[in-house]
């Protein structure tokens, strides 16, 4: 059993809500509410959830692009969150991120060479060496070194995303966080990028955290998957167990809501349609946050927040998790 390469412990990130003339803090949005996750070497951990669940904040908090309020992020024996500025710069070589929006993640004023070469420039690599490295990495992501002289607006969405990936890889990181890397791309281009990521992971043995809202995509790339809701992880486990036998009613509902590109299956499925909307992260419900939409919620769920429990290889935070081979539909029929 190997050691995790990255340990996220009890991470809490809050955004203050300011109101009034003097812009006083009237409350907090708990974007991340006590999140703990381990990332194993060479694995791809998928993180899924809907809007407001905190998955994007998670990615940014790990790299301190957003400063968490408490918790630890352990990498190579040190805590990322307490590193000083030079320590942090060193850590940033190993922990990199690819962003969602291919149109906003590249500086429109700089040519590709400079964008992809920036990480090297920041860490003191010479210009000649940079040119060589940039050419190499552009080739690896499926572009030509000559494209280095062009500007971002000359490329399509998929190509820009490749450039973003190139930038993240040029320092040879051991951990790569991908924040919705294919959400803004067409399906056919998405497939190209997913294949690219898979190849890169195999070649470079990188550990990845793949954040997305598209469950099919996450299933395709992940070894393990974590499901988040309103700032907490509600279920985390290996991909097969999670997709075939979800334990948490939210996971089951989420999977049920995903439309499948297969009419016969779609027709024969029993759909679970959740009522109501995702509660505001500024006013999370008491007890279990999912209880307001949970089809199997009971009294206990209002007063007591469920702790993470281990069962059959997955961890789930629910008072009444679904059992082995039990579906939400069959539970409801009981």
């Amino acid at each position: 059993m190997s050691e995790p390469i990255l340990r996220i412990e009890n991470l809490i990130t809050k955004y203050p809500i300011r109101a009034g003339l003097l812009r006083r803090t009237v409350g907090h949005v708990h974007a991340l509410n006590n999140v703990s996750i381990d990332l194993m070497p060479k694995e791809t951990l998928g993180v899924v959830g809907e809007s407001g669940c905190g998955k994007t904040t998670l990615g940014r908090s790990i790299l301190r692009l957003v400063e968490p309020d408490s918790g630890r992020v352990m990498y190579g024996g040190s805590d990322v969150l307490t590193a000083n500025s030079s320590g942090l710069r060193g850590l940033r070589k190993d922990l990199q991120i690819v962003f969602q929006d291919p149109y906003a993640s590249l500086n429109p004023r700089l040519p590709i060479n400079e964008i992809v070469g920036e990480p090297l420039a920041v860490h003191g690599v010479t210009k000649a060496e940079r040119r060589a490295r940039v050419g190499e990495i552009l080739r690896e992501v499926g572009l030509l070194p000559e494209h280095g002289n062009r500007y971002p607006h000359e490329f399509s969405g998929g190509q820009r995303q490749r450039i973003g990936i190139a930038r993240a890889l040029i320092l040879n990181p051991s951990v790569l966080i991908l924040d919705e890397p294919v959400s803004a791309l067409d399906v056919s281009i998405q497939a190209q990028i997913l294949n690219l990521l898979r190849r890169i992971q195999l070649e470079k043995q990188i550990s990845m955290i793949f954040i997305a809202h598209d469950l099919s995509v996450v299933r395709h790339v992940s070894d393990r998957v974590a499901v988040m809701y309103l700032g907490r992880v509600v279920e985390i486990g290996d991909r097969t167990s999670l997709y075939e036998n979800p334990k948490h009613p939210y996971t089951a509902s989420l999977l049920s809501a995903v439309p499948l590109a297969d009419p016969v299956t779609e027709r024969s499925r029993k759909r679970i349609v959740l009522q109501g909307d995702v509660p505001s992260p500024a006013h999370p419900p008491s007890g279990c946050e999912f209880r307001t939409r949970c089809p199997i919620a009971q009294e206990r769920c209002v007063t007591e927040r469920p702790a993470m429990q281990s069962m059959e290889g997955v961890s789930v935070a629910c008072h009444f998790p679904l059992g082995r081979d039990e579906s939400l539909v069959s539970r409801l029929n009981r």
Partner: protein
Amino acid sequence: MTDLVDVNSREGLGAESLSFGRLALRRFVRHRPAIVSLFLLILMVLAFFFAGRLSNFAFDAVDVTKRLENPSREHPFGTDEIGRDLFVRTMLGGQYSVRVALQVSLLATAIGTILGAIAGYFGRWVDTAISQMINLILIVPALIVLAVFAQRFGGSPVGLALVLSGLLWTRIARVVRGVVMQYKEQEFVLAAKAVGAKPGRIVARHILPNVVGSVLVEITLLLGTAIVLESTLSFLGLGVQPPIPTLGNLIQQSKGAIDDAPLRVLLPGFFVVFFVLFINFLGDGLRDALDPRSKRQ
């Protein structure tokens, strides 16, 4: 790899590489009012600085025998009430007005950009402090404050420039602050952070180049405002004092003659109006050319 980029496909990836600057230039050149205005503006400024030499008269050459003459070949704009050639005086006045406007713009831009960038990038109490200072300056009725300060310091063109800058930097600061705040949240800035870049590098390399466009537009507007303010103050006798002529105090000197010889009063005024008009068209053209939102189809 079949999904390698086809260099000859699609929008211009086969053609010459177009940097943002070059694209903007192309768009600017197509904006007819802006180009025409730029041309006429340059003509006007050149006239101010060189046309005076065409005449033999000095700006302060008094000749009481030739008072209040109408425009003639010797005196293209006529003479004033003590016989001085108005053409030379107007051209010189234009010079000083433009000079003051330029000085004001440069100084205000320098101060405004620095303070605006600091406020926008660092936020929190730094931003609050600078923003409140800006608000304070803006609340007070400009003309009155200017009048008071101008009285004490503004007799010379340089003094007036200093006074006007002290007021007008706020506009630039606001614009720069807004743009910096907007770009600070952009993902490519986060990406630079994620790679380990220090704030200095981020601001200089990633944020400021995107600010330049908006600042250029604001400078043109500032030039217009500065020249109008200068003219107003000088007209009121609170700005540049004679014998140095500016378009403003030239109007003031001739105002008594408005019934008999309206041209004398209106001529300097025309120059101010046209200057501001051309400057505004220029600003329009710049704004359209630099609009970052126009993505290629």
